């Protein structure tokens, strides 16, 4: 049986109740890694198969004995900016190339508790700064659906690994679209949850007020199962919401969607018709609107206005860069880093400048330089504070729409994935890829990417957004689209 093709919820059943062989599942996945990883470059660290087999068997044994393990034995790919004790945590940066965390992120702890087994740490844009996966110090990841194209970033490795079934489920993080954009370009479901619903403890900070860890899967039910395991209050994260979803709340929402539901949906017209959005993308969004209507939804058209559609993007970049400049100040190689010790008599400013100059890549340097500058006296009000005022306006506008509708529908990517090297040369071109993603991060609203069409055999996802803690609505709507289009459990077979 081709166990690697199964969604996690089916796989668990096969392994725990159906007599499926855990070792053969792991072997199948490692076989695909052997076949495709050289091309894709999706992992930075891959664990040994023996170790992984042992843990998968252990998890399955415990589940067979009756432990509640909704993800028993399921292989999980973890983005390399999420801490897993004992595994390198490079953030795809030379700066952290020799850093091994002595602790594990809350979310990973919870998923492992639920039965998942970490298979490895995935490639990404350096410190999650990028939208194509190409700023990685470990080389770019390729899109398994079309290997001359990027998979999207910054969660590029997780996207490629899950899409090509080099893992069954994955974790990414989303600061300005880093889960949703690669999910949209690799045929995956991806969720950036309500800000504070998922603990950030153990996620290497880029821009904390914007980001969330989130699941990436080939099946909407898997996304729900993962969220039920990982979401909820964490006393170690002060931005964590005082809310823990009850067991079954998301999976039930998925099941409701399979039947169809009378959701009210707002199609965000000026986001779809945005000048940056390509014709291919528009078609897929309209197709998704039809799919929702077929399943019982009522779709209306709404406009978000210029602040949300145009000014959100520069506001996002100002905030992200300012927070990044602060968060990345700590990388000085003394406590952790790439283990370049100070030379005798080397002064601290000289040392810091040297190791930071050597350790960070171009895009990171640009962002922290600009961020430091935009936070400095004389410019802070003009840039940082102004962006934060705009942020409030964007949030209030989106919140009022989200409160009037069950779900908002908009593109998840503005174009089809660029070819490798195409967008990376011009930073502004790169930033424009986030045109429709950053609004959810600025406002803290949950947003989910769902595959809704294919363009020249590459899948393309659309984006659904809802009010804070409106995740069940997102699951229902995504499930409706999945049911109507049949575009789920897509597995790429990279060729080239």
């Amino acid at each position, binding site marked *: 049986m081709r166990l690697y093709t199964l969604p996690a919820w089916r796989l668990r059943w096969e392994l725990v109740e159906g007599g499926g062989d855990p070792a053969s599942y792991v072997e199948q996945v490692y076989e695909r890694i052997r076949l495709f990883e050289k091309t894709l470059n999706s992992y930075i660290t891959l664990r040994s198969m023996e170790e992984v087999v042992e843990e998968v068997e252990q998890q399955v044994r415990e589940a067979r004995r009756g432990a509640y393990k909704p993800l028993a034995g399921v292989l999980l790919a973890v983005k390399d*900016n*999420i*801490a897993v004790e004992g595994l390198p*945590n490079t*953030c795809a940066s030379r700066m*952290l190339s020799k*850093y091994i*965390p*002595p*602790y594990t*992120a809350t979310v990973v702890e919870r998923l492992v508790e639920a039965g998942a087994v970490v298979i490895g740490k995935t490639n990404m844009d350096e410190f999650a700064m990028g939208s194509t996966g190409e700023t990685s110090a470990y080389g770019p990841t390729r899109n398994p659906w079309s290997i001359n194209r990027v998979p999207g970033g910054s969660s590029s490795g997780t996207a490629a690994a899950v899409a090509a079934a080099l893992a069954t489920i994955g974790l990414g993080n989303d600061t300005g679209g880093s889960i949703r954009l690669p999910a949209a370009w690799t045929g995956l479901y991806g969720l950036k949850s309500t800000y504070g619903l998922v603990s*950030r*403890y*153990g*996620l*290497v*900070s880029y*821009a*904390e*007020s914007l980001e969330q860890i989130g699941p990436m899967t080939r099946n909407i039910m898997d996304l729900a199962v993962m969220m039920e395991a990982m979401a909820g209050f964490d*006393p*170690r*994260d*002060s*931005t964590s919401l005082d809310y823990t979803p009850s067991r079954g709340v998301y999976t039930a929402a998925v099941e409701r969607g399979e039947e169809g539901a009378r959701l009210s949906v707002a199609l965000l017209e000026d986001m779809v018709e945005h000048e940056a959005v390509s014709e291919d993308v528009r078609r897929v969004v309209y197709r998704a609107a039809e799919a929702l209507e077929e399943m019982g939804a009522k779709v209306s058209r709404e406009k978000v206005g210029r602040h949300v559609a145009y000014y959100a993007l520069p506001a996002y970049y100002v905030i992200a860069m*300012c*927070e990044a*400049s*602060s968060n990345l*100040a*700590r990388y*000085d190689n*003394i*406590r*952790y880093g790439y283990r370049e010790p*100070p030379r*005798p*008599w*080397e002064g*601290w*400013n000289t040392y*810091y400048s040297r190791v930071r100059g050597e350790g960070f890549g171009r895009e990171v340097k640009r962002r922290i330089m600009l961020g*430091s500058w935009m*936070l*400095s*006296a004389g410019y*802070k009000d003009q840039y*940082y504070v102004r962006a934060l005022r705009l942020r409030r306006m964007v949030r209030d506008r989106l919140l009022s729409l989200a409160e009037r509708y069950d779900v908002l529908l908009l593109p998840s990517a503005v174009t089809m994935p660029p070819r490798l090297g195409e967008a990376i040369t011009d930073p502004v071109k790169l930033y424009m890829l986030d045109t429709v993603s950053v609004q959810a991060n600025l406002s803290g609203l949950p947003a989910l990417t769902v595959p809704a069409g294919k363009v020249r055999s590459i899948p393309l996802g659309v984006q659904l957004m809802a009010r804070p803690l409106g995740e069940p609505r997102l699951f229902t709507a995504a499930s409706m689209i999945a049911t109507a289009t049949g575009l789920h459990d897509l597995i790429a077979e990279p060729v080239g």
Partner: protein
Amino acid sequence: MKRRTVIGLEIHVQLTALKTKLFCSCSADYRHSPPNTHVCPVCLGLPGALPVVNKEALRAAISVCLALNGRVADRLRFDRKHYFYPDMPKNYQITQYLEPICREGYLEIEYNGRTKKIRIRRMNLEEDPGRLVYPAGSPLHSPYSLVDYNRAGVALLEIVTEPDMESPEEARLFLEKLRSILEHLGVSDPSLEGAMRVDANISVEGGERVEVKNIGSIHEVERALMYEIVRQNSLLDKGVKPKRETRHWDPAHRVTIPARVKETEEDYRYMPDPNLPPVRIPAELVKAVAESLPELPDKRAERFVREYGLPRKTARVLVSRKLLADFYEDVVKMYGGDPRRAANYIVNDLLNWLKDYGIKALYSRVPPERVVKVLKLLDEGVISIRQAKELAEVIVKKGVDPEEYVKKAGYVKISDEEYLSRIVEEVFKEHPKAVRDALEKPKAVNFLVGMVMAKTRGRADPVVARRLVLRRLEELRARGASQTSSR
């Protein structure tokens, strides 16, 4: 020419009573531990670790705010202050910039017989950096530095005054008052190494403001300020205007030295910490803290005056350290005699000798019951006032029991002949054989004298005792002779 001096202080107080650090659950009691053993992902600034505020730190800050007559903010909010330095695990410090926990307080000091109000501009909670160690002893001579992050993240309260002080003595008085308040609140033990660190701003009329950073004790603050007044005045005398700058106090050489220019130019790029959303400070919490405030030094001094009849000055000395005031009250309770006598003895005699050991050594060097014994010996007329004063030195320095010492040193001399005669009579009755011996051999007299000394626990005046023993023996001889002759 006497120029006006203006002084403002920034005091960093470690909240040493807290069990854990400000933003993580590491034990804050790091002082006697090997380096880097009180650390965790949060206080080491490991990527991905997140801070969560210690609830008791908030309570402690509120209590200090109220004790300093300040206005408590309606929410707790933290900012990041950015600067690169090896003792900073994140290269930014989490502190409070825009909304300090406390504003507009004041403290009253008594100076030259009048009360003066020193205003407090603000107070903020922040994290302590780590500790740097220089392998060659000083930054200048060390080719590298070493860092211990045990201290990193310990809760600090920064207290900033208005420039309301006009002399180093006022600064000292302010700091002493503050120290006692902190001790009474039980939030900090300022006598612990590094638990109270001061930056002093000082300007002399005609010059710019000079900041002297990181002074380790109240005494050093006074010295550093005196040094600066002399330095700045002598510049002005030469027609040179002291420039605005930051200087460091070098306690070993007792001079201030200019800091590097870069240090004064740093742009801190403050921003609210995205990991720490503001926490509302409910009025009920402030009220609860206010109601649980202990008796503070001013009130306590008033009570000492009222209850024990102490002069104001003595009462103020006693409450200048919580430990001292507690000690005094322990003595008063055990003693039962005149509280003024107890206060005088402690303030005028004991304290003098305690200086070498520090106030913290008070209870361990001198248990209160020993002071009570001295006072009782004095009351009983056993020792003189002069002897009591001498005793103060030995009980502090040698840690001995006053009664035993007095006996050994032969301080106490019972020379009352009537009393001693009775003792001699008893000794003679109890030791007839010794008496017979003594009648024969003059050397055996010593035994009888010794017995008298023993019965009085050494307090008999040995000269008088000997004289009385000999006189009694003479009487016996005389009587014996008459009996023999009559036989």
